[in-house]
């Protein structure tokens, strides 16, 4: 009798759960069977009508049914969950080849990138940064740099004048004097900044940037200049790059040299970048002229030093392969966007 009822109930459970595809309906069904008014609960309640002696036996049967039903629903739940997850996975499948989203940052100007790289290299060697004024007087820009009024070297640089005395500095070397007047050796400074010359073509711009370096201490020699330049060249242009000094002339250094680095594009074999020579001119340098030291109140018999100066745009053009200096001052966003680091 009870067995019959149980068999029917089992059949019913099988029947109604057959097409269940969602956890929600499964849970509702389970609640319907196990709930207060549910058929399993009713069956449990009907125990009251079972004679006492038969209760353990019937109880066993009913418990078995309940266990069976629980198991049944649990296993169904697992199945349904899997079905549901599969559906979810399917519905949420994306095209992984669609473009990603990123935070759009801007970029530094190539000059800034080069200055930072140089400052990194030289600050490690103990160089401090000094920035002088852009509107200078004749004294700091020329006279104190051993370039008096009728000096032919003044023709090397076409100067923009404000008055007879004030001018736009033509070289960051002007800052050298300001430092040496106020600081006694040891001096190791790096002076980046804008300079101005009355020149305007593909490789010249009326405004450009330079980086000047100055070392004054006891016993500084041309060997030290060469050693420092070797280090600079390796760090900035690559570990296998060599430097070459050759004679040149600047009024404020003696001896003066032009400094070439071996071509980092072809390794010195000769290519378009180095115009087939294997060498690229990167900066001017020399031992600080005794008169310049003297003028700043530094005893040239006690101290000696070297100075070097390079064009930031020139380094940027070499490093990045930029062919026209104008591009650096035009602010074309297509140009600027390439310098994200």
């Amino acid at each position, binding site marked *: 009798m009870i067995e019959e009822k149980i068999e029917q109930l089992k059949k019913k459970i099988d029947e109604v759960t057959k097409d269940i595809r969602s956890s929600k309906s499964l849970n509702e069904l389970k609640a319907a069977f196990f709930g207060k008014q549910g058929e399993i609960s009713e069956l449990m309640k009907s125990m009251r009508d079972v004679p006492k002696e038969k209760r353990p036996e019937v109880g066993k049967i009913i418990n078995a049914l309940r266990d069976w039903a629980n198991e049944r629903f649990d296993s169904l739940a697992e199945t349904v969950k899997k079905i549901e997850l599969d559906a979810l996975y399917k519905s949420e499948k994306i095209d992984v080849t669609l473009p990603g989203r990123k935070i759009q940052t801007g970029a530094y100007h190539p000059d800034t990138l080069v200055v930072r790289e140089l*400052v990194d290299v030289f*600050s490690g060697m*103990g160089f401090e940064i000094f920035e002088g004024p852009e509107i200078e007087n004749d004294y700091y820009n020329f006279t104190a740099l051993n370039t008096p009024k009728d000096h032919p070297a003044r023709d090397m640089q076409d100067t923009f004048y404000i008055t007879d005395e004030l001018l736009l500095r033509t070289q960051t070397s002007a800052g050298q004097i300001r430092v040496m007047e106020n600081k006694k050796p040891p001096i190791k400074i*790096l002076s980046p900044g804008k300079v101005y010359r009355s020149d305007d073509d593909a490789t010249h711009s009326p405004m450009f940037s330079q980086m000047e370096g100055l070392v004054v201490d006891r016993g500084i020699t041309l060997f030290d200049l060469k050693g420092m330049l070797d280090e600079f060249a390796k760090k900035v242009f690559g570990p296998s790059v060599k430097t070459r000094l050759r004679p*040149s002339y600047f009024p404020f250094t003696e*001896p003066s040299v032009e400094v070439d680095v071996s071509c980092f594009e072809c390794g010195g074999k000769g290519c378009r970048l180095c115009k087939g020579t294997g060498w690229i001119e990167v900066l001017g340098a020399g031992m600080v002229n005794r008169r310049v030291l003297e003028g700043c109140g530094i005893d040239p018999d006690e101290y000696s030093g070297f100075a070097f100066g390079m064009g930031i745009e020139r380094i940027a053009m070499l490093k990045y392969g930029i062919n026209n200096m104008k591009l650096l001052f035009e602010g074309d966003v297509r140009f600027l966007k390439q310098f994200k680091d």
Partner: protein
Amino acid sequence: MKAPLSWLKDYVDIDVTPEELQKKLFGCGFEVEELIEVGKDISGVVVGEVTECEQIEGTHLHVCSVDCGEHGVLQICCGADNVEKGIKAPVALIGATVYATAKDHVTVEGMMTIKKGKLRGVESYGMLCAGAEIGVNGDMFDGADYNGLLILPKDFPNGADVKPLLGLDDYIFDIGVTANRPDCQSILGIAREVAAVLGKEIKYPDCTFTAAHSDEHIKVSDLAPDLCPRYIAHYVKDIEIAPSPLWMRRRLAMCGLRSINNVVDITNFVLLEMGQPMHAFDLSALSGREIVVRRAKEGEKITTLDEKEFDLTPDNLVICDGDKPAALAGIMGGLTSGIGSATRELLFEAAKFARDSVRKTSRALGQHSDSSAMFEKGVNEYTTEMAMNRALNLIQTLGCGTVTDVRRDVKTPFSHDGAKTMKVSLKKIDALLGIDVPAGQTVKILRSLEFGAEVHGDELTLKVPPYREDIDDYPDIAEEIIRMYGYEHIDGTFMPTAKVTNGGYNDEQKAENYLKKLLVEQGLYEISTYSFYSEKDLDLLKIPADAPERKFIKIKNPIGEDLSVMRTTLAPSMLNTMVRNLRRGNMDGALFEIAKVYIPGELPLKTFPAEKKRLCIGMFGTCDFYDIKGAAEAVAEGLRTKFEYVSSTRSFLHPGVCADIVCGGRTIGYVGRLDPAISEELALERKVFIAELDYDELTACAQPFKYRPLPKFPEVTRDLALVAQSDVTCGEIEKQIYAACKYVTDVRLFDLYVGEQVGKGKKSMAFTVTFTPGEEAITPEKCDSYVKKILSALERNLNIVLR
């Protein structure tokens, strides 16, 4: 400086290839910027003798048999009018390359390769050439200017390559000479260096002459010794103006000068050879037969050889005769005393004029010449004297006049002959170089450079060559030694004697780097623009005449009006950059620049102006005001401060879309949209926004970073939807909310609505207000009371109600 190899060989026995010489010169400080092979384009041209020549009937053409020696006898058709039996001329063989000339047979139009041809049915196996076709003119070879065949001398062997015969196998060294070596701005100067690097003796040009006695009285006075330290005049008579001989014309031609006549050519030749400008006056045209060197009088005039008239001032040094200027000193002679075919007597001038004086006059008058260029570089008196003697020697060599013994050599207190002795320490030289050059080597090097050099122990006694005015102290000697000894001897060391120093950025530079980082992170691109602009740029921005931006520093000698004014604001540069982008089709962009503006104290400028940094931000394209304001806010946040934005105006900004940026009660800049009227004027199709901030004020607003402990209790947020009159600003509301409750730490607008649902003249604004608890937690009840306080303040002060 152009130096032909053939000319250098007059003074030095050069036994290396031009390429080797180029390398050696480079090593000792003379970069050969270009090594020009004179006849590089010409090949396969030989001497040919016309053995038979017959006119092709009905044409101007001749068919010739040409004996080309080892190349055989060739049949060649020729159209030149001077072809005839018996002449010799250059023959371009089949496969030869020569210049192609235009119809005029003179103008070179390119290159051509000779092929077998057929003219009027007659086969032709080559081409008889004119001078122009093989790159030879009349100064390089007599008769080469003739518009027809270049007739060659009978003694040229048939079949021989014409290049060496015509001097086309020469090389020209175009050498970069540094400013300290004006003595090398001459063939002789370069020859001295060549001799030194090759270890050869230098052969000086012949400067001797015999002087005929003359009683001619010529007076020379120098009234401006500071500008003319030395003046030498020499009288030459019986002048016969004639063409120069070929050898001299060739020398000039190789250096790019055309021959004029013997006397003028001699002055040009000496200038090239020795670097001393010379001038020849027609003495008969000099009033009073005298020379006065003086500053011009105000209002005096001169007409120079090129027939230009100049008004002079006392800044200009002139060479005068008895009553008027006869030459612009060192620049150009006057027209009236110039050499002409009628000249019978002349006064040669060789002088030293001050560099600065020549430069100033030359620039002021806009009159330049080879002579002025040389004086600006600098001449030395040793050469001045030598050059005069050389010119007189050439007068005799060329037979164009009688050299007299009348010389006026005016030495002034400013004069010095350049002779100088020095004693220097070998140790000091080595210490500077960081290398020990053997004493013997040092002496050898210096002697090769014509220094008298003796060593006694550590002391080096030197007699400096009189033309080396650049030699001043022992570092100059060190340089001479090392450039000849070779920089390859210099190895690297790393300042073993120097003290250790601590490097890196200072705080100010670090702050600027940080600011740039903030801006780059906001998606802005850094730009760099010129520090100067045009006054018109300010006009475009309608900057009023009395605005501080109009008080600017002007460049005296700008490249052009466009770049003539030192900027007082970055806005024009930023606007120009944005406009340039838009014109190039870059329709979106966000840019920034940190750069200086130049603020004068008093004008005209007497002392250094203030150089003040500014930060300028520009945005264009599909952005709006709040994008650029966002960038400014990010800056404020990065500096741990807050900006207020107060509706304002600027002459170039939209009056409704412009704000002062205020921080700590000070206006530190502005932000806004470019006035649509200006946009229209510039035909801009996109909106453009500009912000500019005073960098110092900005960085002064920065608050130091300080860690704040996390709140013990969670923050509470409430959303408030408010209805306000439409003229109430967001900023006013935010201020009220902050003021009403001290626990408010953030007020953020998240919705703004204007429309029917709130009624006309009103707007709805929804804010999220964040309350951060202090010592106690904020319970919902407490929060309600804070909100109540806020609402009543809003209602009381701004007539705002909850929606």
